[in-house]
């Protein structure tokens, strides 16, 4: 590595405005949404054009300097955590909407465009961009592709991977590849899916062609209160069994309901042990018909209170508590740790019981807010980092929840990615041969191993150590510090 030489070349390429080298200027970039994991980057590059990005890649490759791509920095698994000897490559300034093509039903955008900005731009044409992570005001489409982000509406409309029809990706050898395009599917090999969720390890996303969805003419939101998590879980299964795929189906537990209610006064019933929010959309007649069926299932499974919102204002109120749930729970304790595992829907009640049992065992409270329709849990573990040892306890508790998700047939991450946070749990989910296959796949894209090294894939040595760690219950070399984002 020849950092001095690289620095001179980067300065010549980018100039003062687009390259940050001073300590104060670099400070805002030392962390992403997983705020306690910090590292000051060597330099921050903020190119404004595709050519400048390619220039940065060429310089880094020549001098073997590692690169950490970054979008808006809202990631929750430390995927954009900087390296002290690496360039933090921000794509945030590539933020033009290049084309809105109504005839083909697509928009072509640069990677730094914010998720919500796409839906706002296409609204006048009667479309929206379906994947809607809760962070959509801030997160970038490039980051969404890199994490395969989901949202409240992905039960019906799919994740990022289902809504991206074309990608322009630069690999470190200077090649610019087009995967897919403005059509539905390419003939032959389809490299779009492997790029989605690749956490910046395979290439730099330079352009995204997103599929636009026509706005549904009608929506309705149902709130149903239950006196047990088991009943609510059965209602979720019942809705699916009746052949309904709601636009969204979210669940909150008692602690989350109380926290949300105290925070935003959405009118949630405080005597409920579990609450379901179900959104239906479609034609007017279709929504009415589906609504009747959903209400019947909810009642059958023991909902003791039902509220239906058909006008946008009432719907916004019902969603308010769910949308504010994370900050609301954040008020209950000095710190919280947000987990992200998936399980088969049918195991919901059982897994929540197990989490409650672990909560007693660890002596830490946990609130549950999740995408019930997808079986994607977000347990929020409450702790106080000022109490010695409590952070480590929260991490151990979180790790145990994820291992349990794998044990019941789920996955260690539904939408937040592995990053640096879940490296140990990857060893639970994959065998040594599978991890080695991932490494070879990574090397096919990035033979020099300079793109986001150390993220998403655990080394085999680490997995051997983790195995040992389970036996000796020794958590030393794991996450450093964590607090709320």
């Amino acid at each position, binding site marked *: 590595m020849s950092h001095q030489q690289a620095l001179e070349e980067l300065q010549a390429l980018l100039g003062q405005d687009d390259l940050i080298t001073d300590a104060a200027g670099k400070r805002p970039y030392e962390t992403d949404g997983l705020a306690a994991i910090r590292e000051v980057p060597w330099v921050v590059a903020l190119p404004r054009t595709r050519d400048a990005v390619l220039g940065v890649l060429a310089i880094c490759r020549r001098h073997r300097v590692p690169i950490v791509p970054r979008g808006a920095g809202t990631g929750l698994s430390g995927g954009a955590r900087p390296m002290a000897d690496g360039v933090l490559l921000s794509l945030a300034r590539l933020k033009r909407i290049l084309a809105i093509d109504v005839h083909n039903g697509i928009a072509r955008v640069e990677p730094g465009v914010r998720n919500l900005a796409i839906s706002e731009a296409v609204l006048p044409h009667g479309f929206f961009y379906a994947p809607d992570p809760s962070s959509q005001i801030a997160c970038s489409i490039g980051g969404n592709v890199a994490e*395969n982000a989901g949202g409240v509406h992905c039960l019906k409309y799919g994740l990022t991977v289902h809504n991206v029809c074309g990608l322009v990706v630069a690999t470190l050898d200077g090649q610019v590849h087009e995967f897919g395009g403005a059509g539905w599917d390419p*003939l032959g090999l389809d490299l779009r899916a*492997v790029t989605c969720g690749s956490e910046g390890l395979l290439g730099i996303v330079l352009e995204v062609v997103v599929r636009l969805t026509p706005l549904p003419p009608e929506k309705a939101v149902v709130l149903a209160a239950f006196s047990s998590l088991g009943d609510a879980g059965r209602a979720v299964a019942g809705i699916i069994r009746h052949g309904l795929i709601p636009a969204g189906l979210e669940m909150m537990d008692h602690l989350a309901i109380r926290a949300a209610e105290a925070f935003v006064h959405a009118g949630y019933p405080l005597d409920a042990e579990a609450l379901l929010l179900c959104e239906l959309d*479609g034609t007017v007649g279709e929504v009415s018909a589906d609504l009747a069926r959903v209400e019947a299932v909810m009642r059958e499974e023991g909902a003791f209170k039902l509220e239906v919102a058909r006008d946008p204002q009432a719907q916004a109120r019902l969603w308010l508590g769910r949308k504010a749930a994370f900050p609301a729970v954040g008020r209950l304790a000095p710190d919280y740790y947000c987990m992200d595992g998936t399980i088969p829907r049918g195991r919901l009640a059982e897994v929540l019981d197990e989490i409650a049992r672990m909560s007693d065992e660890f002596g830490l409270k946990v609130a549950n807010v999740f995408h019930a329709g997808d079986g994607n849990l977000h347990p929020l573990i409450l702790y106080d980092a000022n109490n010695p040892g409590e952070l480590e306890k929260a991490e151990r508790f979180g790790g145990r929840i994820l291992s349990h998700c794998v044990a019941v047939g*789920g996955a260690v991450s539904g939408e937040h990615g592995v990053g640096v946070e879940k490296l140990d749990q990857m060893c639970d989910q994959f065998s040594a041969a*599978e991890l080695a*296959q991932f490494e*070879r796949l990574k090397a096919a894209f990035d033979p020099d191993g300079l793109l986001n090294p150390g993220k998403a894939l655990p080394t085999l040595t680490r997995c051997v150590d983790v195995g040992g760690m389970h036996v000796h219950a020794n958590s030393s070399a794991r996450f450093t510090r964590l607090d709320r984002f």
Partner: protein
Amino acid sequence: MTSSPAQRVAEQVLAARASGTTLAIRGHASKRALLGERRADAVLDMRACSGVLSYRPDELVITVRAGTPLKELEAVLAERRQHIAPGIPLLEGQGTVGGAVAAGLSGPSRPWRGSLRDVVLGVEMVNGLGERLRFGGEVFKNVAGFDVARLVTGSEGAFGALLSVSLRVAPVPECTRCLVVEMPATPALTWMRRRAAEPHPFGGLCWLEGRLHCRLDGAAQAVADFTGEPGMVEEDPAFWTQLRDAALPFHAGWSGLWRCAVPPATPTDEQTVCIDWAGALRWRRGSINTVGESCPVGSSPLALGACDGLLSRLKAAFDPDHLFNPELMRADAPA
């Protein structure tokens, strides 16, 4: 101890690797006419590796061995009024699930119900090193590790032999209505593009031989809410099954045709025989060189041209000795 069918496949691959024998992976060979026949030193027959491993209708997921006949999959799902939403072509009236996933072909409802790749949740496969590997799983949301399950979908076995596949299933729509009207190609395409921008429960939009075919699938009320074009009359849904399975009269003589994936609003022309996927899939006499991709019927897109750079490194990452389907992803240009 008797070995499982999957283990026997893995053993065959290991033996082939040791002896330097290349393998043509084969299910029902139903895609010969469309993608060409795969040739190699020996055949890796997947038909014995068959059967449903688990089906959980409430979870909307089914896991089957790769050699399971598509007809069996359809029948098992139909008992619970479920199906694979994009529709899977049964070429020559047959096909295995592994062959379908390897070919990655989706039916006419693809623009509205997602692609076959989209509903692949996980796979178990044997790579060129003879290792049995699992990627993805049985849950809808899963971002742990690279999405190899969807990478191998449509790779025609070039990365390995599939042993089992987990697919997301969907409820069969409550109601189906099929309409047809006489219309020339250009106005039909304009009509499709205009209506596809609106929120209708389409299950297919196709133009063929001077007629515009329109399929609706959804809640009874949503289907009833749709107002079509003056002159549209009901037609037999069999048209759509035949279109999916390449069993219409025009398919009989399709060996001279090209399959083209294009931006859906691409203007049509005299060479176009059929417009499917609301414009995004065309069958033409001759290729389209300016927009989109095209491949002649009878060839695999993976056998056209030499494979270099990223693609050749990818092939080597899974199958370094080019054991599987060696005509695909070759380093040297095919004759």
